[in-house]
């Protein structure tokens, strides 16, 4: 019986060896290219449905969102772009994000940070706090291209979770500071009503 067992192990050695060899990881390191977020402009949006949509100058205050329209540009020429097959990453880090209002807002004085009143819509089912330690500023201002464009647009939404106690017209400012010293900023004015 022992002889049979030994013979079995000898003849079936390869069965156990092949999966081990297949498990060896031969992954190649991929190339990296850079892009830059070059401009930002703000619009009003309404989030009363499943997803936010661009709105006019008057928005229901419980569903108000600031829409950030971003323009990204690849750091390469068209010829290199057509051959490039690697990953794209943002050249700059976003070091600061500041949301303010031109007037007092829920007891917070004008031009003071309203970051705690907003959440970032990261996806269909994820709203995130504007906590700089989580790297969220970069996620707000960086978006990979969907095709092989040199320039591409993307939207980010900042959702107002604490509507104003007093209805009226408010002007919101959003500014993002990049690691290369650039500051992208814009403002939008909205009438928030109950």
């Amino acid at each position, binding site marked *: 019986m022992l002889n049979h*067992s030994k013979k079995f192990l000898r003849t079936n050695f390869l069965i156990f060896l092949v999966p081990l060899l297949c498990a060896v990881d031969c992954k190649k390191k991929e190339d990296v290219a850079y892009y830059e977020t070059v401009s930002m402009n703000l619009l009003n949006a309404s*989030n009363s449905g499943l997803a936010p949509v661009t709105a006019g100058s008057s928005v*229901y205050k419980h569903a108000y969102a600031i829409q950030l329209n971003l323009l990204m540009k690849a750091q390469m020429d068209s010829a290199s772009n057509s051959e490039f097959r690697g990953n794209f990453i943002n050249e700059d880090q976003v070091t600061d994000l500041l949301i303010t209002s031109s007037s007092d807002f829920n007891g917070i004085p004008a031009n003071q940070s309203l970051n705690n009143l907003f959440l970032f819509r990261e996806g269909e*089912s994820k*709203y995130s706090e504007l906590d700089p330690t989580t790297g969220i500023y970069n996620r707000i201002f960086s978006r990979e291209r969907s095709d092989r464009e040199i320039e591409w647009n993307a939207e980010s939404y900042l*959702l107002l979770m604490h509507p104003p106690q007093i209805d009226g017209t408010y002007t919101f400012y959003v500014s993002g500071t990049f690691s290369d010293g650039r500051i992208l900023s814009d403002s939008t004015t909205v009438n928030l009503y109950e």
Partner: protein
Amino acid sequence: MRVLLIFLLALVSFDGLANEPLKDSLPPKRFIKQLRFHINWMEIGAATYFKGKSLSGLENGLSAYYSGTRTNGHYGLFGLSIYYKEKISLGFICFSRQNTSNNQNYVDYLTNRYSNYYVQSSQEDYSYETTGLAFSASYRKAFRYFYLEPKFRFGLSNLSKDHFYLWMKERGSNQYMELELNENHKTLLKSYHFILAIAHQFKTRAPIKWELGLQSEFFIAPTKTSVTLSEKRYGADAVVSTQNISRLNPALAFSVFLNWKLGR
């Protein structure tokens, strides 16, 4: 367990083992020569749970939650059995069950309950695994190249199931709610398997016999689960409720298996 032992003993006595010399009286070498190893190379099949009465009457939509649970794949691999006189065996086998949970019924329940929310679920159909080791005892009755083999298996397994999470957005506002359902139970689950196998033996020139067969299996995998349901709205504390549920989880499985017998 006691019923099974009586059943196996009855089968042994019917087979005329009484005419053989008693095991204790056999010289040691002769006893060892009667032993053969069988490798239970693989079992591939499908299983399905019975819903059972225990599901009705559960609160917070849990009846709907559990009604979608079913098993798909039912596998055994790398088993080893030792047979005495090609009749009585003891062994073990690694096993795995691929379970699928379809949460559509539960999502429908939540849609009715929270009609003011958009209920989106990315977990409508997800899989989880039960993997473990089963210890078996069996008795084999041969009819030329065929044999019939009732088996009993006692399984110890680990159930790795993700918690159920649902994110719901309120209609008409930015507000949302997170709903989380956690099932807490013992890490090691016991299961009891009653199996009837029928197979054909193929002789080869090598000192190995192949056995190809079919087996039907009834098993229960009792669980005592503490289900914690948590509802958390933005800016508010989570509302948590707990419910204890005992279930037998009876199931029926059919498999094809391939064994190797070492030695002539």
